[in-house]
Every structure is written in C-alpha cells, then in structure tokens.
C-alpha cells in the first residue's frame, strides 16, 4: 500500500542499501536492526525521520520501529560526534581502572554519558559513553572508538587518545581497522564494506589472545593426534 510521500533526508543510494539488506533475509523484518545501523550511518543517530524511513521500507508501523530502536543501546537518540568513545566500566575493567578512565574523560570533555563534546558531526567532536562488558576482559581496561578496540588502557593513555582525536588525529587501535568515524563504522555494521578490504588486516592478535596457544607452542603441548581416517558412526536406525 502506498501513502502520501513524506519528506525524507534519505537518498536513493540509502534506499538501495536498505533494499539490499532486506534481500539478505528470508523475511524482510529481519532487516530492521541492520537498517537502523544504516540510518545511523547517514544521520549519526536514529532520528524520527530514520524511524519513518525504516517503517516505510519494511511496511511496519512507526511505533513498531520505535519499539525496536529504543530497546538497543547502540541506537543513539541524539546526533553523535565524529567519534564515539565507549569506556568499559563493567566490574572487571572498572576494578582495573575503567572507572578512573571514564571519570578522566568525562572531566576532560565536560560531558556525561551519551553526551557530545563539540558540535555533533563536526571534526573532533566526541560522544562519550560508559559501556557494559565489551568481551575483551583479558585486555582490560578497554575502551573503543567507533567500536575499534584500544586495549590495556590507563587514564593517561585514554586522555592522550581523546586529545588526539579532538585534534583531528586518528591513532590506530590496538585491535581493529584504521579509524574512520562513527558513521562509517555504522555503515559497516549495516554490512557494507565496499572498498575497505585493507581494514581486514588491522591487527587482532594481542599477546593475551595468543597467550595459551603460544605457551603450548613453546612447551610442545598439543592436542591429541587425530587418527588418519576417523570413521563416521553407522547410520542410526530410524526410530
């Protein structure tokens, strides 16, 4: 069913991408989460227009889209800065200094959770948030910039990083691809990676990650040897 066309800031390429997302799934509604990431790649947050856009693409009621958009923490209600800085303050990272890192950045930027220092979207603008566990506990305390990992942080290191970001630098993550910005990261989360093959080579193997494997290698410990020709069990009889 078509309705009166509404004003939108989303161009044809975004519509094409939205349709490409829908095509990935057996049922269209599955495209909603990636599509909201796509909306953020355009607007830097999920605006009311973005909600309308998704509802229109998926033939959903706007309330249904709002219900989803407000459930997940990665969908932002207000425009984000060029960079999103997420500091893990869950228990373990906090105990190792995460709370101090967050406090340091908060005081430096003069903003609180999900607030932006600088004009959102302009170079050097930073949105700060405290995050729940980021699944990098062996590398804690960790923080992320645009969802790339900066491991084994201290308040000083983090402060240096944020100052660099503010001055337009893009220090490399310890694990992840060279930094772009929040919107570019959201585009990749929506599943669009064109022209960014080199991102794959961004580092991932921290010493901690490889610790066990390396010790095993060093000490000559390996798993039991596999038999040359492991057989499958007989086909079970039908019950």
């Amino acid at each position, binding site marked *: 069913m078509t309705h009166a066309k509404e004003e939108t800031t989303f161009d044809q390429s975004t519509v094409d991408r939205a349709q490409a997302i829908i095509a990935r799934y057996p049922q269209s509604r599955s495209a909603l*989460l990636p599509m909201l990431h796509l909306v953020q790649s355009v607007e830097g947050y999920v605006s009311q227009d973005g909600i309308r856009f998704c509802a229109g693409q998926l033939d959903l009621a706007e309330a249904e889209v709002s219900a989803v958009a407000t459930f997940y923490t990665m969908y932002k209600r207000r425009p984000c800065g060029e960079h999103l800085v997420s500091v893990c303050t869950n228990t373990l990272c906090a*105990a190792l200094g995460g709370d101090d890192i967050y406090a340091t950045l908060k005081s430096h930027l003069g903003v609180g959770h999900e607030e932006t220092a600088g004009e959102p979207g302009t170079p050097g603008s930073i949105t700060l948030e405290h995050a*729940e*566990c980021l699944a990098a506990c*062996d590398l*804690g305390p960790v923080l992320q910039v645009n969802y790339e990992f900066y491991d084994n942080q201290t308040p000083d290191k983090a402060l240096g990083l944020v100052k660099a970001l503010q001055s337009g630098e893009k220090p490399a993550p310890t694990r992840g691809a060279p930094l772009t910005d929040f919107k570019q990261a959201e585009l*990749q*989360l929506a599943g669009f990676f064109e022209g960014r093959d080199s991102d794959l080579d961004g580092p991932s193997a921290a010493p901690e990650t490889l610790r*066990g494997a390396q010790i095993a*290698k060093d000490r000559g410990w390996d798993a039991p040897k596999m038999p040359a020709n492991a057989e499958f069990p007989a086909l079970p009889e039908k019950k």
Partner: protein
Amino acid sequence: MANPLTPVLTTRWTEPKSWTIETYERTGGYTALPKALKAHPDQLIQQCKDSGLRGRGGAGFPTGMKWGFIPQGDGKPHYLVINADEGEPGTCKDIPLMMADPHSLIEGVIITSYAIRANFAAIYVRGEVLHCIRRLNAAVREAYAKGYLGKDILGSGFDLDVVIHAGAGAYICGEETALLDSLEGRRGQPRLKPPFPATSGLYASPTVVNNVETIASVPFIVNGGSDWFREMGRDRSPGPKIYSLSGHVTNPGQYEAPMGTTLRQLLDMAGGMKDGIPLKFWTPGGSSTPLFTAEHLDVPLDFEGAAEAGSMLGTTALQIFNETVSVPWAVMKWTEFYKHESCGKCTPCREGTYWLVQILQRMVAGNGTASDIDTLLDVCDNILGRSFCALGDGAVSPITSGIKYFKDEFLALCDTNSKVLAGANA
C-alpha cells in the same frame, strides 16, 4: 592423559593472517566439509552425540541431542543460528576466535546446516565488535567465492546461504529466544517456551541455536572423530575448552585446555596472581555464575565440577579479583549491569534489579543497615526462579554468593557506615 594445554580451536591463531581462507586451507581447513557432505546427515548428528560435545555458551546442553530434536521431513525450512552475542561479563573467547579463525566457524556452520538440513544460517554477532564482524563478512565472501557456500556446495546438491547479522547492544540477546526475536527485527525479549526453537524458532520454523565455540569444534570432530575428541576432558564434559583468564593475574589471556582443568593449574600457567597479591574471589564462568573464592582453586572446571562446588561452568570466563577489591562494590557494579540489561519483560527481573541496585548503592555509600542484607537476600529469593528467563537468575548470583562468602564485608559497611572499604583500590 592429554597435555595441560590442548590447542585445537586456538591452534591457528598464531599463524600469520590466520583469518584468510588461504591460511585456513593451508592448515587443514575445509577438509572436514567434503567428508561431511559425503556422509548421511544423521551420521553427523550421531557423531556429534557420540563425541559428547556440550554447548559452550554456558548451559552445556548436549549439542548432538539439540540437533536431533529438529523434526525431519516436516516440510518446513530449517535454520541454524549462531549465538555470537558474547556479552556475559568476563566472557571473551568467541570474539577472538571469530577474529582469528572465522573459517573454522564457517566450516562448522556448513557442516551443521547440512546435518540439520538447514539452507539458511545466520551468525548473530554483538554489534560492538566491528573488527570481528568485518572478518566474518570477509570469510563468508571468501567461502562463497570458493564454492563452500551458495548453491550445490562442492557438487553435493546441498545449498546454504549465510548472513552475518550485527546486533545493536543488548546483553539479553544472548538468551537464545531473545536472540531469535532480535534476529526477526524485534525487541530482544525472550519468548515463551514451549514451543522450543527446535520446533518453532526463527520464523516459527525448526531452528538450532548454538554458540560459536561449539560450532567451531564441529570440523575438528568430523576430522578427528568422537573418540579423539573424548581423549580430552572428562567423561560427561569431554573436549578442549577455551578458558579466559582476566583480572589480577600476571598473564591474562586465552588458554585452551582440557575440560576439568582447575584454576590452580591455569594460574600456574598464567604466572600466578599479579604482583603476588592474594586471590580473593573469582567467577568460574562469567558474572552470572556464583562467585568462588580461594577455597575453590582445585575445583575441576567442567560442567559437573563447577556445579558440585555450588556454581556453574558458564562460559569459563575466569574473572580474578585480588584482595584489594571490595566484594559489595563488585556486586553493586554487576547489579548495575543487570539492571541496565534487564529487558523489562517480567516483573521480578525488571523491578527487582531496580531495587537491588539502589540498596547496594546505598550500602556502598555507607548508608546501609544490617536489615538491608536480609532485604537483599529476600528480594533475590523473589527473583531467582521467578523471572521469565535466566537473566534474573544470573543477576542474583553475585549478590547471594557474595553475601554467602563475604557477609562480614557487607556488615562492615553497615557497622561503620563508612566508605573505607568501598571501591576498587587496584
């Protein structure tokens, strides 16, 4: 007797560019797939049952049995969904696995899909791990290009499409039915069971939901056989397991060892406690598993061992805290997490975590009373086993186990009404 460390899943991680299909194939990757495609799907299910592989996402459900629940010949599409929504505090094994060796997961996905007769599989990855999502997407593209995915895989007549699905920040989506709702584009709130996903999962069709580490094990089991797999670990909890050591240890990291390895053994390999400060408390498998203390250093960390000692194996996420850390403070922080992540569907979890946080914050601020401890325990009792899903149960674990082992510390906060012990002093 297996070695103290048995790298299987982690064995390729030290290879240069370990994530590429070239490295994977050079190191024996995609050799299980052609074998599997020549077998009958039911043989694969039987082999998985024989191997004793149990789910690595925390609950330890026998994987082969789960596959066997999928009704066959029912005329409905079947789906495989990989739970890669790793978010349980302390848990950090699946993300490095997918970053370092995504093809082992993809190959496992293809074999498993073939076994359960699924032609569409989704890997639901938490959204905050972009680099991992990047590598998985690339791996899927490579696998398509090589004919391991798509139509008529390796001439077997079997078709499979795989999509990498980025989540958007919700711990609850690690609960399998919440994950399915989320994958269907809804709020990630758990579904009523029954019907179970095996009969009515994704799009109300039969669906297997398995953890990353579980499915990445499948190619190895196909190549090595079930007996080989059982050479590691213990009878009811066989196989290797990635133990993730974090916190106050000298060398935190990922250690893949046979099931049943103890923290003492792991600490030994990890260089002991950091700076020699003694161990105070630890989680065997993430924050939802009741705390252990130094008393539990020799508990065999497998499903039975952890349960017998009053906790759970969970995700073998060993968060290790030394004596500088206040237990009430740590418990408060975890409770804040559960409150933030409670989906809101059911009363006990939604309202209970809201209440518990406030009591704990007040206590840690030095304004608690001894009766608050009774209230905490009673509210926990009204949440445990009363909430809709296991999130509520997990939320009370730190509190009840914290009070069980460290009640004096909670009482001390009330006695002195001071903040002396509060906070991390690391």
